[in-house]
């Protein structure tokens, strides 16, 4: 098999895997899940679990998985477009696939125990995000014109690797929440719910920044392109205020807003599909236009973050001091 064909396969596999995984992630989490009997599962003593922390942890796994799915599909397409010129461009595919599998595992796992392999994977994902951002920054900076609009528009997207960083962080948080069955959930000594809400809020702002940049590149030619730069910052503000506020609040509006953002994230795929159709040849010319048009896998990263927001709010509801 020649190399381009291999690349085609890798990219296709990446997209397919992320789609399938995302579907199962979203459906499995709503169903009641039996404790899995996978090999990977930690052999556990049967401790008395706190269902709320486990629930929140699984929701965080789901959020991390959604983000990882988005990254897997997005980096498959974009790095395929870049012909995997640099071997390192395979890394996010591998790592996000692993993160995705881990998150699936976590979503299905009912036990109140952190899992070493999951922890390791999530840390790896976070590290990949950091290193990837470095790579992308370097790529932009070395182009003629340096950090100019031209290069932030068309060079490696600076914000993109942040999504896998966020996925890793959320996954890491998930493990901390999960193991906190007796104590109050804490992350680095901070109340877990609030910490996650703050991280998620920051993530929403960062993702808004990226959407804003790329939609600016598209000159906001369609008014709907304003949605992902207006709704998420409000969500971020709501989450931040939840993180900073006192206990005992219900956050009904915030939760409602997070659901709205989740919906927006998935609806974004539809809008981007429409955007693809507006390129020369439309969907008949899919093999070119998926690469040219707006990235189909990008908008669900908003959904991933909003799901994390919901998990954090759930946790705060169950543990008012979390």
């Amino acid at each position, binding site marked *: 098999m020649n190399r381009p064909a291999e690349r085609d396969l890798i990219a296709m596999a990446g997209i397919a895997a992320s789609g399938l995984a995302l579907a199962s992630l979203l459906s499995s989490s709503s169903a009641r899940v039996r404790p899995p009997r996978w090999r990977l599962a930690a052999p556990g003593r049967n401790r008395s679990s706190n269902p709320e922390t486990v629930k929140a942890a699984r929701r965080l796994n789901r959020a991390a998985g959604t983000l990882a799915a988005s990254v897997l599909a997005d980096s498959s397409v974009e790095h395929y477009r870049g012909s995997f010129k640099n071997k390192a461009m395979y890394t996010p595919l591998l790592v996000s696939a692993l993160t995705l599998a881990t998150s699936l595992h976590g979503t299905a796992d009912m036990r109140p125990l952190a899992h070493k392999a999951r922890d390791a994977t999530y840390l790896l994902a976070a590290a990949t995000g950091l290193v990837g951002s470095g790579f992308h920054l370097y790529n932009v900076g070395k182009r003629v014109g340096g950090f100019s609009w*031209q290069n932030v*528009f068309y060079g490696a997207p600076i914000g993109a690797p942040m999504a896998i960083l966020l996925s890793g962080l959320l996954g890491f948080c998930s493990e901390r929440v999960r193991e906190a069955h007796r104590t109050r959930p804490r992350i680095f000594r901070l109340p877990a719910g609030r910490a996650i809400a703050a991280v998620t809020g920051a993530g929403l702002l960062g993702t808004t920044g990226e959407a804003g940049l790329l939609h600016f590149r598209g000159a906001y*030619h369609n008014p709907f392109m304003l949605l992902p730069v207006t709704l998420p910052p409000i969500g971020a503000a709501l989450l931040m205020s939840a993180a900073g506020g006192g206990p005992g609040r219900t956050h009904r509006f915030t939760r409602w807003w997070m659901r709205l953002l989740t919906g927006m994230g998935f609806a974004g795929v539809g809008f981007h599909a429409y955007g693809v159709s507006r390129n020369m040849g439309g969907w008949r010319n899919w093999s070119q236009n998926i690469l040219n048009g707006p990235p189909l896998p990008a908008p669900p990263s908003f959904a991933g973050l909003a799901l994390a927001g919901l998990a954090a709010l759930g946790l705060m509801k169950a543990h008012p001091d979390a």
Partner: protein
Amino acid sequence: MMQLHAGATAVSDDPLHAPRACDGRAPDVFRPGGWVPMRQYRESEPVDFAIVGTGAGGGTLACKLAEYGFSVVAFDAGPYFRPLEDFASDESEQTKLYWTDDRIVDGDNPLQLGSNNSGKAVGGSTVHFAMVSLRFRPEWFKSRSMLGYGADWPLDWHEMWSYYAEIEQALKIAGPVTYPWGPPRPRYPYRAHPLNGAARALAKGCEALGIKWTETPLATLSAPRGLARPCVYRGFCVTGCSTNAKQSALVTWIPRAIAAGAEIRDLAMVGRVEVESSGLVSGVHYHRDGRWRFQRARNVVVAGYAIETPRLLLNSATARFPNGLANSSGLVGKNLMTQSNQAVWGRLEQEVRSYKGPPSLAITEHWNYEDRGKDFFGGYSYMSQGPLPQLWANTLFNARGLWGNSLVEAMKDYNHVVGLKIVGEMLPQESNRVTLSEEVDQYGLRIPRITYSWCDNDKRLIDHSLKFMRRALEAVNATDIWIQDDDTCHLNGTARMGSDARSSVVDADCRSWDIPNLWICDGSVFPTVGGANPSLTIQAIACRTADRIRALARRGELEAGSARPSIHRCSIEVQRL
């Protein structure tokens, strides 16, 4: 909306031989086989405006006047193309876009006419232009009084600045977020396109020499717009864009004009403007469908570009106007200005693939705005280049004399070619001119003779630019550098505007001094050309002219019997874009 599919129109669908805009409909350039309804006017009843030419000047004016409620018929000698269907990715086939009727050239530096300077199609030369959409440097509008050469325009740059903004919006120009030269301008409506290899080489060269560069503002879409697709970067722009990304008059002003009630007549060559005994013009004689016809009109606008416009005015001479229409100053046909288009070419070690994307994605206007260090008047910009293969082979043959094996060998390096080309200001000289020869063309009309010689200033400017561009290529380690010293582009002048009837042909409103209901609205009216591509300025002038005509009509200052916006509504349902 009325829409028929190809089968319904198939009888004779050769746009070069049978007119398409008839029977109350015109081609829908956005839908294969589609049509849009088009209002039609009787020849016997005078329309408010008969416009000769539908390019940057005529197409724009037709649209604006129709939108202001005037009745408009616009004629074009060329075909009505459907870009989605008629344009092939084939340089030879696409020569059908050029004006290649017989013309005679002479002078010390005879112009090469055709591909690089004139189009013949509904939409005019904008159908195959390179889309570079620049504003003039403000001082150029007063180059005589402020810079000491050429002639002053009767226009104020502030006013032009606002018309530029209107055109940039209308064409969704894709340009840099901030423009490095000149007074502030509003943000371009669409973002700049990604640079290709050739553009990056220009940028690196500029940075090495310490001058500014930017992404070229281009009239091609970097995001979707209505039914027009964004650019696909295949680089066939100067042979006609088959995606409608290029915002030519054919896909912007013309559909708007038709929607507003204008009629377009394709394959309609105007041979003569008729003058009544009163001294006013009364209509145009035109050739369509194999015979001569006459359309009555209250006003005639000539917009055939800088060769055909004076030719038509000269060919319309009468006993009363023996030297041609609007020619009391004797200046019709004189002061023809082309722009210098010299290049420096070289080879880069890495692949450049300069033909990918629009040909001029990066530009520097440094020498348009910097007056120090020049031994000449005027300015020039230079841009990255992306010649298509056939053009490149021709260039190698014509400029370097390569043929046979040496040409084949040189073509193998095509992917490594890098080049910079100027658009340089040439000074107006009365001796550079369009006159009539005794020979006649296929319509029996006397063909133009075009006389052109560079003056010393032109030569000094070219010299300066070639030396500078050579340094820019050397700075990016190009090898085998060579100079193409004989190319020209864009035609202007020949019916200059001014504030004095003795020294100009039209006034600031593009109205001829001699005949109040005869107007000229195209590249011919430029008193000077500057070092920037002209189309944006031509369209800005057309928009201004339309506004002035409306204002004059409201004040009752159009000639007796002439138009007031006759409030008509298109009875047929019309699709707005």
